[in-house]
């Protein structure tokens, strides 16, 4: 694909130059000539060597994956789960991962990147604070304890943590019916990955910090690296979506956001979401390398807008799926879907509406839905309460993000 910005190449040289002198901060593409190619895959080279590096993000994606597997395996085996092991994995201490490379990456951990973005948790946009950061990290820690309490084989019941046999799967439910594994996985996709992507690495406060822009324009590379700081920051955003994917096998493996982007994209109601996000990442990266910051900023807005749809659509999808199962097994059949929905609703708090540096849905709004989900007697076990309220929450989310509940609840090929 050939990508060109507005071209003024035919104008007299001096006139062009005087325009570029006239404004020091908003020197947009309209005044400049760019002529660069957006590659067909996320592959960028300099001097014959790749300039792409998101190893730290791949590590964190795989860490979360292993934490989910740890809970899943203990549930399947009916054995006691060790909360301390999950806590170690969260902090990446004591070499608890089976993937040795993760243990070796001692400077990478999920916890210190949970609710830790520049725009929200340093610059306090979107109503964020360190108190909130502390609370959400504690919430994840609590999931480890909840999972441990539910493990060991006792049968889950209203007000009793334990195991529920869901078809071929065994799931651990906390006493209130929430599945700690899903709260962890989907919640962390928001509090860590989403937050880092849209509120940190795609933040101009980070991308343009210090002399980043000047260095990127002048191709000043990071010491011992083949990339500029800004190129790398962009890659780090990319890595939180695609860093865990493995496309080499016969059936491609997609992790977390990459997987759920595809699942939303599989619904024709949401058009070419997957292609749009992927293209925006490639286009933005090519623009950075070319020094075309206006195009970069356009791609940032596209990514922020489109990625925010994913947890919203999935939240509505799972709320409605759960509602349809409330009559089965005293409601327990619904809890997996509702727990997925719970985690995706948590994620909505970390979205970033372009141009506002605030989430599409405020923390207070998100918290109200979350506390509503478990407001009945014994939490999710109060199926009558949920049956009365789920449609309202689904409607609220869908409306805010600009789609309909009908579009999200049925996947239209």
């Amino acid at each position, binding site marked *: 694909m050939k990508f060109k910005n507005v071209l003024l190449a035919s104008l007299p*040289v*001096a006139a*062009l*130059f*005087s325009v*570029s*002198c006239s404004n*020091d*901060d908003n*020197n947009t593409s309209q005044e*400049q*000539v760019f002529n660069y190619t957006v590659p067909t895959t996320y592959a960028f080279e300099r001097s014959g060597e790749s300039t792409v590096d998101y190893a*730290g993000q791949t590590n964190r994606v795989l860490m979360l994956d292993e934490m989910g597997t740890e809970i899943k395996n203990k549930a399947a085996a009916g054995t006691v789960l060790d909360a301390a092991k999950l806590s170690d994995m969260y*902090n990446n201490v004591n070499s608890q991962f089976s993937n040795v490379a993760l243990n070796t990456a001692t*400077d*990478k*951990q999920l*916890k*210190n990147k949970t609710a*830790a973005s520049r725009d929200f948790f*340093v*610059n*306090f946009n979107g109503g964020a*604070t*360190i*108190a909130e950061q*502390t609370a959400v*990290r*504690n919430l994840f820690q609590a999931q480890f304890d909840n999972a441990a309490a539910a493990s060991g084989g006792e049968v889950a019941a209203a007000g009793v943590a334990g195991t529920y046999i869901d078809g071929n799967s065994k799931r651990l439910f906390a006493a209130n019916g929430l599945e700690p594994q899903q709260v962890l996985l989907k919640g962390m996709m928001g509090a860590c990955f989403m937050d880092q992507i849209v509120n940190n690495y795609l933040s101009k*406060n980070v991308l343009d*910090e*210090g002399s980043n*822009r*000047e260095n990127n*324009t002048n191709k000043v590379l990071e010491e011992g690296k083949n990339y500029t700081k800004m190129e*790398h*920051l962009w890659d*780090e955003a990319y890595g939180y979506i695609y860093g865990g994917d493995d496309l080499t096998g016969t059936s491609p493996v997609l992790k977390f956001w990459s997987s759920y982007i595809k699942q939303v994209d599989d619904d024709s109601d949401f058009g070419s979401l997957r292609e749009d996000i992927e293209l925006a990442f490639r286009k933005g990266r090519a623009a950075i390398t070319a*020094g075309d910051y206006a195009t970069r900023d356009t791609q940032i807005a596209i990514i922020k807008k489109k990625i925010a749809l994913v947890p919203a659509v999935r939240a509505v999808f799972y709320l409605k799926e759960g509602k349809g199962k409330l009559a089965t097994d005293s409601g327990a059949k619904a809890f997996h879907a509702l727990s997925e929905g719970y985690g995706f609703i948590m994620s909505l708090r970390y979205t970033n509406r372009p141009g506002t540096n605030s989430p599409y849905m405020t923390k207070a709004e998100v918290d109200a839905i979350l506390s509503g989900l478990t407001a009945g007697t014994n939490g999710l076990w109060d199926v009558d309460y949920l049956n009365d309220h789920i449609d309202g929450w689904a409607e609220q989310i869908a409306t805010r993000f600009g789609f309909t509940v009908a579009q999200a609840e049925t996947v239209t090929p």
Partner: protein
Amino acid sequence: MKKILLLIGFTAFFAACSSDNGGSDSSGDGYDRTALLTNWADNLIIPSFENYQIKVAALQTKVGDFTAAPSETGLGEVRTAWIDAYKAFQYVSQYEIGKAEQIKFVSCTNAYPTNATGIETNIASGTYNFSLLSQLDKQGFPAIDYMVNGLADDDASIVAFYTSNSNAAGYKLYLTNLTARLKTNVDLIVNDWNGNYRAAFIGSNGNSASSSVNRMVNLFVKNYETYVRSGKVGLPAGVFSEGITFTNKVEAYYKNDISKILLNEGVKATQDFFNGKYFNSEVTGPSLKTYLDYLNVVKDGQRLSTIINNQYTTINSTNALLGDSFSEQILIDNGKMIASFDQMQWNVVYFKLDMIPAMKIVIDYVDNDGD
């Protein structure tokens, strides 16, 4: 400079484009930086250092009395003088420029937690050079804290270190040397300001990275962010350690019940500087506040300077909820420490994202949290 240079050959244009960050003497916005620097030097910086000098001299006198004839009464007088000097220090830590910068004034005056083991090693060996980097955590107010509050659990036992201890002479000498070091440093700084430095400081009235206003603004924000917000509250409260708290990393750990007093003084010093308030007076002069107002910086319909001062009010009321001992506060209800950190962070945001860009000043230190 952010311009993209596409063409070559028009070097005249090139030069014209590249001068906005150079070493010009003019700030470009018309604000009288000379008056600002003069107010800072004459009404804030020099009086604050001179006050600190007096308090350090008083401490030195009390230490002299105590080491000449150690007693519990004398120990109490040293402690009082130490607290007075420690409070006075809070007003000068943001002025690490000129001679203070050369001698690493803040690092060799207030590095904590102090290194008790290293101090004991120094006392035992009797050979130490306080000007070495490796000695930074074995001197200053935190080291004196250990010497007068931390050697034992009760006053009689502390005094015994200076009387009956087999190396009582070594303890007395160390306390004497610690205090002398403080005095030497402040004398150097005050002499420099009252010598040539004042004129050099005021004369550097441009808008280059090395000019006085730019340097002071950076020092002011760095002091507020690093030494006040993080050092006094954030670090012990576990904000930078994934929730792991450190009751021993509070300021004045051995005394333990003055961390809040020192925090309050530290916050007040920064607010006074922001408002250009003369030291120990209600009079104000040219300041960051008047500079912002001159530039008419408004945020959400309100003057930024008002927002910042309102935030200081919130900070003070939030900090007032803390106990005198931060070590205890962390254990009893760390949430209050986090709340203080959060309120102080708001002014970091206003300083770094709103004030500094409005003054077209470049922040010369960067949070490094990449991976």
